[in-house]
């Protein structure tokens, strides 16, 4: 059978090679670190690694972020789908996601630090605590939930709500009894992403907890600390803690699938969409979210980028273009911008390709092997970047030489290349297009592909001519979801970059930590601008597609 389906065999081979290089080998190398332990050392390492407070805080962080994202995201999603909004407001909802969390954290420290933040006192929480982490991460991830809800609601045919209205339901009852239950599957899917992102987030908890005199530790900061110890004790601890992080990442989707299975339904697609209504109060609410989650931190960063001397006030004497001129003429910026653009584009594209293939195999073939492979490909997203980076280093820091026929040496030379960074980014984020592709395939009728088979197309042809074009909208959003974190990626890059492969994330970190916070602010503004433009372009493209 395999021999007859050549295209599929090739896909399986490609998937296997990718999985081996990007997932199985690095994760295997990490697990081998545990194998180096002697039995009698195990209790000590376990004891050193286990930290009840960090475990509890990580759990609270996950749940808190889930609560915040849903508290804001569900009303936002309903508003996006059901209320007539000015274009810039609808667009602006995406902004908090495109501000790298590293940048928004620094901005929130400026805005709300307990000593002299601009908003201290207005925000009733200590930004340097667990609450601060929940706040910053929650605002950052809210657009994901909002857009999922919006997408789900846009698919609900108008007749469903009209039937409820005829049955005597008011607008509020319709929302509560009809509309929101329809969005439940989308909400559960987005909850999985939110939980995994919150559990594996490092930058936000690190920056906030480190600035506190009584920090709230979480698992990722404990892992970071473990990696600071000597390799012999630190690495097994870090790996053990990273395994703990897999629990929410692997468990949540299973739990949600079980919940969905119990009261499972699929929303019938098609039919007329619901007409949005004019509701100024809701529009104002969306505007308020955009203002608080995006504009406030952005303003702080923009002011920072024109500040000549930190902390010397916002007077005309202390503002100037010098930070901008200095950074824009810096060759490092040009190189990093080029590298990050190439890498983020390539990694997002590769992740979408791999996600499509793996998702297709899992969804359409559905053998235990295919589903297992798809599950394995999600793992790198669930562990902190520093641990994944360590695994990749353990595998790929050497040239690998294949000798053919005693004469030709094929040398796979990944270290210090953009290839290695690209592989790392792709491995880390392939989970996003994978999940997206699986969800989209679920709602795409298999007969569309079968018709192409009957027409004479092989597996490759079916994917190219039918599946890919139909999944394009889903893959485009997934592409953007990958591009955003890759464009400013730090934790993997800081370990894997080479002398010629400086990227924006490491440059931003360098400027902020060693050189000039004003220059870092300039870079942050540039990054947000690039991604804001990208998000706007995608949004416009999506709107035009929707209009035809």
């Amino acid at each position, binding site marked *: *059978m395999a021999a007859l*389906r050549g295209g599929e065999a090739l896909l399986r081979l490609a998937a296997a090679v990718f999985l081996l290089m990007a997932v199985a080998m690095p994760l295997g190398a990490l697990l081998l670190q545990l194998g180096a332990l002697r039995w009698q050392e195990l209790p000590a390492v376990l004891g050193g690694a286990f930290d009840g407070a960090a475990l509890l805080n990580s759990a609270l962080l996950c749940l808190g972020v889930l609560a915040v994202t849903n508290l804001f995201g569900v009303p936002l999603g309903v508003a996006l789908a059901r209320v007539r909004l000015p274009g810039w407001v609808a667009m602006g909802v995406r902004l908090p996601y495109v501000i790298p969390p590293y940048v928004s954290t620094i901005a929130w420290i400026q805005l709300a630090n307990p000593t002299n933040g601009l908003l201290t006192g207005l925000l009733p929480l200590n930004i340097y605590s667990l609450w601060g982490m929940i706040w910053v991460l929650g605002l950052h991830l809210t657009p994901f939930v909002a857009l999922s809800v919006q997408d789900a609601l846009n698919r609900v045919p108008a007749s469903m709500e009209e039937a409820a209205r005829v049955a005597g339901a008011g607008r509020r009852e319709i929302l509560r009894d009809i509309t929101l239950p329809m969005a439940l599957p989308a909400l559960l899917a987005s909850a999985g992403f939110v939980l995994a992102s919150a559990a594996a987030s490092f930058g936000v908890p690190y920056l906030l907890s480190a600035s506190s005199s009584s920090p709230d530790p979480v698992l990722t900061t404990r892992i970071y600390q473990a990696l600071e110890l000597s390799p012999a004790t630190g690495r097994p601890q870090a790996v053990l803690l990273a395994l703990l992080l897999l629990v929410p990442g692997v468990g949540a989707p299973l739990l949600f699938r079980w919940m969905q299975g119990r009261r499972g339904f699929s929303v019938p697609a098609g039919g007329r969409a619901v007409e949005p209504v004019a509701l100024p109060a809701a529009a104002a609410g969306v505007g308020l979210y955009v203002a608080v989650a995006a504009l406030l931190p952005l303003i702080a960063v923009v002011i920072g980028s024109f500040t000549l001397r930190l902390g010397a006030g916002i007077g005309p004497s202390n503002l100037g273009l010098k930070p901008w001129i200095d950074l824009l003429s810096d060759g490092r910026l040009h190189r990093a911008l080029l590298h990050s653009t190439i890498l983020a584009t390539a990694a997002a594209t590769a992740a979408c390709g791999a996600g499509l293939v793996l998702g297709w195999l899992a969804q359409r073939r559905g053998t235990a092997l295919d589903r297992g492979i798809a599950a394995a490909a999600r793992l790198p997203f669930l562990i902190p970047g520093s641990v994944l980076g360590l695994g990749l280093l353990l595998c790929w820091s050497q040239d690998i030489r294949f000798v053919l026929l005693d004469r030709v040496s094929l040398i796979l030379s990944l270290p210090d290349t953009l290839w290695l960074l690209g592989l790392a980014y792709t491995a880390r984020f392939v989970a996003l297009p994978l999940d997206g592709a699986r969800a989209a395939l679920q709602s795409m009728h298999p007969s569309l592909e079968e*018709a192409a*088979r009957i*027409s*004479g*197309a*092989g597996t490759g*042809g079916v994917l190219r*001519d039918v599946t890919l074009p139909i999944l394009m909208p889903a893959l485009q959003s997934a592409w953007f979801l990958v591009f955003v974190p890759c464009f400013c990626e730090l934790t993997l890059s800081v370990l894997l970059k080479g002398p010629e492969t400086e990227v924006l994330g490491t440059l931003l970190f360098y400027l902020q930590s060693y050189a000039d916070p004003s220059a870092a602010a300039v870079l942050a503004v540039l990054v947000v601008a690039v991604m804001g433009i990208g998000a706007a372009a995608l949004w416009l493209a999506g709107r035009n597609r929707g209009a035809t």
Partner: protein
Amino acid sequence: MSVVLAGVTKSYGSGAAANRVVKGIDLEIHDAEIFTLLGPSGCGKTTTLRMIAGLEQPDSGTIHINGEPVVAPGRLVPPEQRGLGMVFQSHAIWPHMTVVENVAYPLKLRNDPQARTKALELLQRVGLTGMGDRPAHALSGGQQQRVSLARALITRPKVLLLDEPLSALDAGLRVELRVQIAELARAAKLSVLLVTHDQEEAMSISDRIGVMNGGVLEQVDDPAGLYRRPKTPFVGSFIGHMNHLHAVRRAGSIYIHRVFIRESPGFEEPVRLSFRPESVEFAEVGIPCVLRSRSFLGAFTRFEVSVGQERIRIDSHSDRASNFLRIRECMIETVKMPTAEE
């Protein structure tokens, strides 16, 4: 023979939980024949069609198409190499292509430089003149199904598979399209395998019909043969309306409410009579009945009457009713008595 199935079986799942959906089917579809697999949903008819298409893999058995083995021990030809045309229940029109792109796609895969021209010609023949450049998803259901039909025919396949092609359409359109499908198929001397649960559709266009139930092919015959000589009660009740009345056999004769029906040698036991609405008529004497409703349907009049606790239907050319019935023709089957163990 265009399509030959021998001993084809298919199960989903494995072990004790295995669900055997096709339990050994032998079937031959002749050249230029319209053959219909008819049965209720879940009877295995669609699975059978999909195994012929290559979209499902049989657990055992062989399938030949145009004399070539496509499923045989050690051989499994993928769907794209079976040279079939197929129309899906859901139309399966690719929403990202225009109408003509949908239809021309199979030819494009075969690198036919005239793909577009041929597709436009065919669209004309299925009644979609001038719609070639519309986006496919903007068409109505009936138009989409015509596109789907044109796409299935564009490569001039010898065998056309139709999987409930009309069930998503409204009644008038269904009749119109099935006539058109039959005309196109006959003109091109196609072998057609139609899968449907709609017996009227099956009866109206098929040369032969196979009735499936519970994964088994119960009877294969031409429409008239199926109607007149159903081999099993299931076939009888599935094709056309079938009345049922409980009766008893005593001393070699059948009685209902102590009224003699006909002679029938056998054990003394309860039996069930099955008969068509037109095989029963009102009479001066016979089985007592009470008239419940009468509807005038033009060519005939339909009566609903009750006999004891049971209800039956009578189609009669006369619109007059009486209080007694006479059954002209019927099938007799034994009614299993529930035993103590059950």
